[in-house]
């Protein structure tokens, strides 16, 4: 077929589709919904991914963490599974602080946490009680809105001082001033010395819902434990993060009397944010493609609808097929006529689907941004290309069988068909 024929066949099929407007639209609906959901899901997936990754990156890729217990690469730490491992201690933290051993660390913070109820007068609030070091803000960010954070002195001498997240402050004190007030935790009174500024959700952590006390105080006086959940350290700009992690490993093995330097008998895990980003990317990619495949299944259903309508169309036009053959149409002409009609249907459906998908994705991103998340609207060129190719392919695949049946009609029988 020459290009001109092609053009004419397409114009013809557009005409015949226009003549059956509502039927054509209903047939296309399956394709429209399928394509729109693929686009929407790919876009939402990309948005969610960038949201998560951005949050990790706000902590900086130069953050190195030590967690207790050995973890395989790309697996979540054991503590996520609810396993309590007690091998990481405050003494480890102090050893890491040693500048002569770890010269490339800018700041180090230790963390231990549990849920405790805090009460002031008649108000009680269940908060995440975080025991940490004076260096907390250097590592995790955040700002003190009122008062101050606790200092090194207070960290070491079991001071009963308390810094409140904005939500905890609001729940316990409402609008009244919290500074200098005594809050009861575990039958002991802690003095509020600072209130943090509101931060919102960052990295799945509710920073506003936690209350912070010095780590030693938390271990000895409140939780009655001797271990840490976490040690985090910031690597100096320009320093080799990989080298720092190796040095940290050597230091930790030395402290824990582990002679095997391969890492196989470690009772701790050293990770940096870059690894966490990789892991999250793997997880979110898998999720994104899984959902896209689910959406693509609806395209299959749409394709069956196309096949159905093409059979109806062939049946309605048996006499027309007979006539076309009588005036010289070859079997291939008839195949192309119906195939192109199916493809025109699916490609138009695909284009409408892409437009709806993009518009929907945009609206969703508006809503999410309105809710205060830093959500980027992105529709990848590849997802559009995939949608167009898929819908044309569906037209081709599901249009072929009806088209072939049409082409095989005998002209005599077709002409006398009632």
């Amino acid at each position: 077929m020459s290009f001109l024929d092609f053009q004419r066949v397409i114009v013809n099929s557009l005409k015949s589709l226009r003549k059956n407007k509502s039927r054509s639209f209903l047939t296309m609906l399956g394709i429209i919904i399928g394509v729109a959901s693929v686009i929407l899901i790919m876009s939402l997936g990309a948005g969610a991914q960038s949201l998560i990754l951005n949050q990790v990156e706000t902590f900086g890729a130069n953050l190195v963490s030590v967690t207790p217990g050995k973890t395989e690469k790309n697996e979540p730490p054991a503590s996520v599974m609810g396993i309590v491992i007690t091998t990481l201690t405050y003494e480890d933290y102090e050893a890491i602080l040693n500048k002569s051993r770890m010269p490339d660390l800018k700041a180090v913070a230790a963390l231990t946490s549990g849920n405790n109820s805090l009460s002031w007068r008649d108000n009680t609030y269940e908060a995440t009680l975080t025991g940490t070091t004076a260096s907390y803000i250097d590592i995790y960010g955040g700002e003190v809105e009122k008062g101050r954070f606790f200092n090194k002195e207070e960290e070491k001498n079991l001071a009963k001082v308390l810094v409140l997240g904005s939500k905890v402050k609001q729940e316990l004190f409402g609008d009244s001033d919290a500074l200098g007030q005594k809050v009861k935790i575990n039958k002991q009174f802690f003095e509020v010395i600072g209130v943090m500024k509101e931060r919102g959700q960052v990295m799945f952590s509710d920073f506003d819902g936690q209350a912070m006390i010095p780590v030693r105080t938390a271990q000895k006086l409140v939780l009655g434990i001797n271990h840490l959940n976490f040690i985090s350290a910031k690597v100096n700009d320009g320093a080799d993060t990989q080298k720092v992690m190796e040095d940290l490993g050597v230091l930790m093995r030395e402290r824990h009397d582990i002679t095997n330097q391969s890492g196989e008998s470690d009772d701790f895990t050293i990770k940096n944010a870059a690894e966490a980003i990789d892991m999250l990317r793997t997880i979110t990619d898998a999720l994104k493609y899984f959902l896209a495949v689910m959406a693509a299944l609806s395209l299959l259903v749409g394709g069956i609808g196309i096949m159905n309508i093409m059979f109806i169309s062939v049946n309605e036009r048996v006499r027309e097929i007979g006539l076309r053959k009588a005036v010289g149409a070859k079997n291939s002409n008839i195949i192309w006529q119906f195939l192109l009609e199916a493809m025109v249907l699916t490609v138009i459906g695909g284009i409408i689907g892409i437009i709806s998908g993009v518009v929907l994705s945009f609206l969703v991103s508006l809503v999410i941004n309105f809710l205060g998340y830093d959500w980027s609207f992105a529709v990848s060129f590849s997802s559009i290309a995939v949608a167009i190719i898929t819908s044309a392919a569906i037209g081709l695949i599901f249009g072929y069988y009806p088209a072939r049946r049409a082409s095989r009609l005998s002209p005599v029988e077709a002409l006398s068909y009632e």
Partner: protein
Amino acid sequence: MLIQIKNLVKDYQTDDLVTPVLHGVSFDIAEGEFVSIMGPSGSGKSTLMHILGLLDRPTTGSYKLAGHEVSGLNDDELAAYRNKKIGFVFQAFNLLPRTTVLENVELPLFYSEDHRNTRERATKVLESVGLGHRLDYHTNKISGGEKQRVAIARALVNDPAIIFADEPTGNLDSKSGIQIMEILQKLNDEGKTIILVTHETATAEHARRIIQLKDGHIISDRQIQHRRRAQDSESLK
């Protein structure tokens, strides 16, 4: 000879049952003839026309069209022959619905190799059958007689060697029927070979030769000395 058929046999096979329709039919048709094939329904005249028009193949026998054996051609070769050599006019018009008169006449050109000036060529044949004023009408908006004239224009547009007319007046009132026969006679006067299939004697007598079929055999094949002239007819009946 334009058409030479020898011992043409056509059987229809359904399951285990073989139904013979044509039992060894032979005749020649020269270029420029106007032949009526007559017979009651079931006589095999439609089957014969389908085979002569290359819409169907004989079971056995020979069919030479313009000197070429065509009984063994495949679907695509037959389609090409139909496109170039043959024009059909059917009882039921068989125009494409929801398309214009002009587009219907352009249709055979669409399947031919020569795509030049399709619009001009289609317009010209439509003017020759007196439908120059209906080019852009949709086919459901014109009268039966006009529909059959569109069909004739469609049959003529590729300048075929033979026109097959299968009961062309069967769906028309007598006045329109006369007009159609007049056009066919005029075409024949200009040299076109025409094969008319009908069961009505009055219609058949517009030809110069009548072949009568019965039960798949030729029972008579005669020349008409004074053919009926459509211009003189009041009615076909």
